[in-house]
């Protein structure tokens, strides 16, 4: 079994913290929540301290934030139905663009790897794709594929392919149709029996892990046209199949999942206050993989854990956010 060692608990937010996000170089951490502020944390000697507090970008809860891959922008999604984009052209992070259009709460926001596209999703059931040109944001598509509240959007690690998770119990994959520049749903991942709260791509982009209110984690694998396994691909589109279900580990809703791009470890944030780490067994059949729980940190937070994210640059370093108002930094040791 591995061990999750608490490095530091960061208390500065008032009320529930919904989301944390690492700077792509792993040198800073940003968090947001109910108090409508974004806090940027950074190391000072052995400790993490508040480097900046961003306020007045939103009039309601900030549900999620995400750092662009270049590290120069932060996008934040709010219950006030807007998405704010913050840049540090002036030396300080400032909100220089507010994206409007969703009818109600924006739940999630994600940057494509190129930084050219931004995706948002909302309780209004839609997913929006925004094109970025010289700090101007133009809506390129409004995708109405989901039947309910959309909880999460996440871009593919290398390609302009988007995945979303919803209250309608499904995750979906979207791609731009080269013929008419229309964004369409190319795959529906249905197997969960309740809300899909979050998802995470693996390093290659060939697999996705989803987590749900049904207390399970599922691993999905993409089968492209002409795959060796002989899985049929109607319309010449890749097919996604659930190849593994992790059940019996979580006792309440699983709010978040992150698949580490360096170590391959999976981490989950659960409503039972526990953070769990899973590792894929060596030498297992790629079409029937097996994951073993290697760590279960009881009372990781005093209340629900809302978000977990591996540091993209420091293997084993993990940040979490909880309803207890804390942001925590952990180190996973095998």
């Amino acid at each position: 079994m591995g061990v999750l060692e608490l490095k530091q608990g960061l208390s500065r937010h008032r009320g529930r913290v919904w989301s944390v996000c690492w700077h792509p170089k792993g040198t800073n951490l940003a968090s947001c929540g109910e108090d409508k502020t974004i806090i940027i944390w950074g190391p000072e000697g052995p400790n993490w301290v508040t480097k900046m507090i961003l306020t007045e970008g939103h009039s309601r809860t900030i549900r999620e934030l995400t750092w662009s891959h270049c590290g120069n922008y932060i996008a934040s999604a709010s219950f006030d139905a807007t998405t704010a984009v913050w840049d540090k052209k002036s030396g300080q992070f400032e909100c220089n663009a507010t994206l409007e259009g969703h009818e109600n709460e924006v739940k999630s926001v994600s940057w494509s790897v190129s930084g050219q596209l931004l995706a948002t999703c909302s309780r209004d059931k839609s997913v929006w794709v925004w094109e970025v040109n010289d700090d101007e944001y133009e809506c390129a598509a409004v995708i109405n594929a989901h039947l309910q509240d959309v909880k999460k959007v996440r871009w593919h690690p290398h390609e302009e392919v988007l995945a979303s998770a919803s209250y309608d119990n499904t995750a979906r994959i979207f791609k731009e149709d080269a013929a008419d520049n229309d964004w369409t749903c190319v795959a529906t991942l249905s197997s969960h029996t309740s809300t899909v709260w979050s998802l995470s791509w693996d390093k290659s982009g060939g697999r996705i892990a989803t987590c749900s209110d049904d207390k399970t984690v599922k691993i999905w694998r993409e089968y492209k046209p002409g795959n060796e396994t002989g899985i049929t691909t109607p319309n010449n589109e890749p097919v996604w199949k659930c190849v593994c279900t992790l059940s019996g580990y979580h006792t309440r809703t699983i709010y978040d999942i992150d698949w580490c791009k360096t170590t391959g470890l999976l981490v989950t944030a659960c409503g039972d206050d526990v953070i769990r780490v899973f590792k894929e067994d060596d030498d297992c059949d790629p079409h029937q993989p097996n994951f073993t729980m290697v760590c279960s940190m009881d009372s990781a937070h005093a209340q629900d854990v809302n978000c977990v994210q591996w540091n993209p640059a420091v293997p084993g370093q993990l940040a979490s956010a909880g309803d207890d108002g804390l942001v925590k930094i952990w180190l996973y040791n095998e």
Partner: protein
Amino acid sequence: MVENLENINPKLYKKLDEREITTEEKDENIVDEFDAREVFDLIRNINDPEHPLTLEELNVVEQSLIKVDNKKNTVDVKFTPTIPHCSMATLIGLSIRVQLLRTLPARFKVTVEISPGTHVSEASLNKQLADKERVAAAIENSMLLGLLNQCLMPKN
């Protein structure tokens, strides 16, 4: 208050007597664990959104439908809408949830559900009430918060 009442003549139920304080409870050296009666006392006087009556008087909440587990930090409340197609059921469930969020210690995980078989949209209402993100968004909505506070305001 709404003009056209859905359930014009609801059945009334007798209220429970006030809780008797035992000598053990008066003893500060003995830890009093939360029990169903205590949770019931927190929600029995919530006002019905339509009638000038409490949820207890309409039998929407009952002590026997409350489960408390102090070790596991769980509180499970089942409530019974007065009629199976009651459009106020979400608001009632939300008012119970918000009241317990405001009054119970944060360690408790609160579940509020419709008593099985008592509402036509039971599954979808339960799912909505269990979604803490939607509950959080709802109580940030000033119009809804106004309605909720009316339900939660104690009567003189």
